[in-house]
């Protein structure tokens, strides 16, 4: 039996010299305000040699581009989906980059590419669905929580 109460660890933000570059990035896919906010929070990376770790999704942003950014367009979005636009800079999608530890994605976007989100079963990068301005977070849609569904049935507690 696992002893003790459920412990939650306490990581502390460690100021590190900018040269160290330890640690992985936090990527963001969301509307402009969400991305602007998290960039103000310090997560953004942008340099001309690499793809950015964020994507501002607007009305004009294509589904293909969202999926391409998230995981690369390996899956079939639809029979008549146009091929994704070539990436402006060479590089991999967020899921395929080893330097990204967490992907924050607005839940409404996750819904659009739900098949891609569901397919991701590795522990890293962690995918966190977040609310958007228009839609509050809905736990029933969350891929991670869905795995915990149906665990406690009346049969189990007999």
């Amino acid at each position: 039996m696992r002893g003790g109460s459920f412990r939650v660890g306490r990581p502390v933000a460690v100021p590190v010299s900018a040269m160290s570059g330890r640690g992985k990035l936090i990527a963001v896919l969301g509307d402009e305000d969400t991305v602007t906010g998290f960039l103000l929070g310090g997560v953004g990376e942008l340099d001309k040699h690499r793809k950015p770790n964020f994507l501002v999704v607007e009305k004009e942003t294509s589904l293909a581009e969202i999926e391409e950014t998230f995981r690369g367009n390996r899956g079939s979005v639809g029979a008549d989906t146009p091929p994704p636009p070539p990436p402006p800079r060479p590089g991999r999608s967020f899921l395929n980059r080893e330097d990204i530890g967490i992907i924050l994605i607005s839940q409404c976007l996750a819904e659009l590419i739900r098949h891609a989100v569901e397919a991701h079963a590795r522990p890293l990068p962690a995918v966190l669905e977040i609310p958007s301005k228009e839609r509050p977070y809905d736990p029933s849609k969350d891929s991670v929580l869905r795995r915990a569904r149906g665990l406690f049935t009346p049969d189990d507690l007999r």
Partner: protein
Amino acid sequence: MEGSPALDAAALELLEALESLQQRRHLLSQLLREGWLSLSQARYSLGCHRVSSLQYGATIVPRVRVLPRAAAAPGSPRKRGCAPPPGPPDPLSWFGVLVPPSLRQAQSSFIQGVTVAVELAGLQGEVAAAVTRYRTLLRRHRHPHGDTQTAGTPGDTESRGDTEGTGDTETLGDSETVGDRGTLGDTETLGDTETAGDTKTTDAEGATETPGAAVTSGATGTG
């Protein structure tokens, strides 16, 4: 029916993990809403096009990174309180020299949001690991080496438990104990972060605030 202490403990852990997750999610939603509101106010102060993706710097250096828990050695020195080396530029500077308080407030909310998001990512891993543990134990419990009804026959291998197989919804693909490897827990902040507010941690251990450091709760995730 005979219970199983291990199964009960696993169930409890799962429920506690889910509850922590829910609390943190609630906090994140709150912080995001505050942040968005402040951004709207800043836009009102500065003008619509002064707070948008057009302002993002041409080059951006990350100020926050995440350390996988395994990589953070327990004895690693925590440089609390000492002056951090000059870090990457503050994104607030993209918006001008004099920025309205609402923009600073937005930044503060989102900085806290980042901390909570990191915790959440760790907690999600914990929940996933707890789900797997519980399922495994449940399966063992139902297809036991001994059964749950007859007491007297040690050699009896007949399974009298649930004959419908495992019964619960087995989502395949969960064979990895997600929380055990590479659980994210630490947030590494480069340079100076103005943590204007505190992350409200509600769990029992309480929060020890240190100047200049953001305290986050993550999950230990070790199996």
